[in-house]
């Protein structure tokens, strides 16, 4: 797309012809009542598990509340334990005492904290929080049931193992089962490994259960109910809060926690949604540029055309919305109100902003990807923004940068200024070079009628990026052809440290060049720096509030971990 050849679309003008030649397919409107491409049915199995366990527990409470039925249960339990006690021998007792250690606090602590460390190392925070939450909920529910049932240890037999408190449900069995299940669902990828893990857990829990009964620490129904709640709580937690379809466990390199799996059911849904909603014929969908993206799941879509061509697509989900919120909160706390740090409320609004920014840039004649629209995958939860793909383009950090490229890059900023826009994320990864022209991508942060400071930062960052592949002197000389001296001075007064994207700072550091200082030396007058930190009552209040919440939450978690025996 040539900026000089395009004009902002008007009502009377036809829409600009597509640069990409895509063979049209058949668009299909989803009728009312028909399921979306990826229906949100992921909670169903978890709810069934929970409901089934709830029914079992209620029935069990009814059975134990009634004296005749309770006596039947106690009698049966006692008979089994007494039979097992008759099998006791010295050696077998030693073996059972050793197995009994599987349910000890130290075993649980070792397993729990090892899992926490592994999840932290792999930055799988979703699974980490679900794991910790599930174990803490399990311990709380188990404690409630133990207190509620208040059932003593088995009657009429010598108890030869260690125990603490009432017997029903069996705490060692419940906590060990839940910890192992949590480990399985947070560490083992779905498939054969997980299936094999279930068998191993079954064997381990069975061994512990037999040992507890042999030692007369627990009776049959104690361990059975312990297993039921130990399985149910983590299973339901992971199925509801970290379903494999959305948060698959992989140990591939090069991705990040922000990236969703685009294979399986979701892959099929993406395929059908693109065809139905955009009217293209999809041939292939592949992840693309994962290492350069932390706020969405980027992908490349091959569509039928003349010849077949690629489209670029970004999948946004609730996790990205939350990441955006935390990012903006962090910036507000660290720097005050840099600009437009208001978080989005819904995923739909987030993709609307991206699509709007794309259309705005494209309409303003900035050489940016042509928008193809938004595709719905799961209503209010997952959407895809589709754009033109700059096939054959290279990142500016790897391209030859001559005077023509420098002029072209600076012209983009000039055009943004003239159109009253700011890109707000000018960095090497967002500037591509193709056919001797600079293209600007990732316009998500674009802002309409930004402050002069924000526009000045865009100019300075563009000059710095261009200088990393040439020289500050050369870029400065070319910039003077399009910008006044005072505008350039304002740009470098506004830009330093945090206003430069981290990728740009890293490149300059690797090159051992302080380009910012070099530009300042070239200016006729050294400008007064423009303050970046903005202090306000809101920022101070927010900072104090966040600190208080963090301290309170920390104390709460610490106290709870201690009382739960995990510390």
């Amino acid at each position: 797309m040539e900026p000089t050849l395009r004009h902002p679309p008007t009502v009377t003008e036809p829409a600009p012809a597509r640069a990409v030649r895509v063979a049209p397919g058949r668009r299909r409107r989803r009728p009312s009542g028909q399921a979306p491409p990826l229906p949100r049915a992921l909670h169903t199995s978890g709810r069934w598990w929970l409901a089934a366990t709830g029914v079992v527990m209620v029935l069990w409470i009814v059975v134990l509340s009634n004296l005749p039925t309770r006596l039947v249960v106690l009698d049966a339990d006692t008979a089994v334990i007494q039979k097992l006690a008759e099998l006791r021998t010295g050696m077998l007792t030693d073996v059972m005492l050793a197995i009994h250690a599987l349910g000890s606090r130290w075993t649980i602590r070792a397993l729990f904290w090892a899992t926490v460390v592994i999840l932290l190392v792999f930055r799988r925070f979703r699974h980490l929080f679900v794991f910790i939450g599930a174990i803490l909920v399990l311990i709380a529910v188990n404690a409630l049931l133990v207190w509620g049932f208040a059932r003593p240890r088995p009657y009429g037999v010598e108890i030869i193992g260690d125990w603490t408190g009432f017997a029903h449900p069996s705490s060692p069995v419940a906590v060990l089962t839940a910890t192992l299940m949590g480990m399985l669902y947070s560490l083992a990828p779905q498939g054969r490994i997980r299936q094999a893990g279930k068998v191993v857990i079954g064997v381990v829990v069975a061994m512990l259960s037999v040992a507890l009964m042999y030692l007369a620490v627990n009776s049959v129904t104690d361990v059975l109910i312990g297993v039921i709640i130990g399985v149910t709580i983590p299973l339901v937690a992971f199925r509801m809060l970290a379903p494999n379809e959305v948060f698959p466990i992989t140990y591939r390199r090069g991705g990040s926690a922000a990236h969703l799996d685009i294979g399986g059911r979701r892959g099929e849904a993406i395929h059908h949604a693109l065809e139905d909603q955009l009217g293209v014929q999809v041939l292939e969908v592949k992840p693309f540029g994962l290492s350069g993206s932390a706020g969405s799941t980027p992908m490349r879509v091959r569509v039928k055309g003349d010849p077949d061509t690629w489209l670029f697509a970004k999948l946004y989900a609730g996790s990205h919305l939350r990441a955006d919120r935390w990012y903006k909160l962090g910036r507000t706390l660290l720097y005050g109100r840099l600009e437009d740090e208001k978080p989005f409320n819904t995923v739909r609004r987030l993709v609307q902003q991206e699509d709007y920014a794309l259309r705005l840039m494209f309409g303003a004649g900035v050489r940016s990807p042509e928008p193809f629209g938004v595709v719905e995958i799961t209503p209010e939860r997952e959407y895809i923004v589709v754009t033109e793909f700059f096939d054959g383009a290279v990142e500016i950090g790897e391209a030859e940068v001559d005077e023509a490229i420098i002029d072209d890059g600076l012209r983009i900023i000039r055009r943004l200024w003239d159109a009253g826009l700011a890109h707000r994320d000018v960095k090497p990864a967002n500037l591509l070079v193709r056919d001797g022209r600079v293209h600007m991508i990732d316009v998500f942060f674009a802002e309409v009628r930004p402050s002069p400071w924000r526009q000045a930062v865009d100019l300075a960052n563009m000059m710095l990026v261009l200088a990393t592949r040439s020289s500050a002197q050369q870029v400065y000389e070319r910039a003077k052809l399009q910008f006044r001296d005072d505008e350039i001075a304002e740009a470098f007064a506004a830009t330093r440290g945090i206003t430069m994207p981290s990728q740009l700072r890293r490149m300059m550091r690797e090159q051992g060049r302080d380009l910012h200082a070099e530009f300042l030396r070239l200016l006729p007058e050294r400008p007064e720096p423009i303050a970046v930190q903005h202090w306000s009552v809101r920022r101070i209040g927010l900072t104090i509030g966040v600190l208080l919440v963090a301290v309170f939450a920390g104390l709460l978690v610490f106290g709870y971990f201690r009382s739960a025996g995990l510390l």
Partner: protein
Amino acid sequence: MRRRLLPALALLLAGCTIGPAGQGGRGPESFEQSRLPVCEIRGNVRVPMLVLMAQAVPTATQLPCVDLNNLTAEWSLSDVFVRNGRARFALDRFHDRANHAVVVVLERTCRFGQVTSGKVTRVPSDQAGIQRYQEVTEIRPGQEFRGAIYYLFRGGCVTYRLHFLGGEQARPLGDVVLMLDFVPRERVAAAIRQDSKGKLSLDPPVGR
């Protein structure tokens, strides 16, 4: 769903009398009391916590407990902990909950002078068939009293560790002696046999 399920479960648990029918209690009060080391609930000594304490120290012929009839509003029970070999609970005074005024420990043997370092002397016992020893560790008039009472019986020992803060020392000591009592193990075992119509027994048959 879980948000609705858990309170429902708690309500159901609280509403049901899971304890023995013979203890007579049907309301939430007796439900809670049955989880505490109380001497009896409406005449029945088969209190789950007492049974658990008996299982913790299988040799103990006496079980320490709180006589609810003498438990005044100034005192409350806390820190109930039972494991194999040991049972413990505390009594706190209303105006001094941060400090356990009395910690009651049931073990198989006494540990004279292990926790405190005063002189242990035998005194006349207020419990039939149980020897009583007393130890005064520290007296700071008007400020603090530290000491211990040991009850020694066949198969076990109960220690009352005393720590009273404030000017009053004689009155709380009197309260403790009144509030705390003993239930013979045999009474608990008999209650279990009776409630289960002879099917269950507290202890294994002799020789097993």
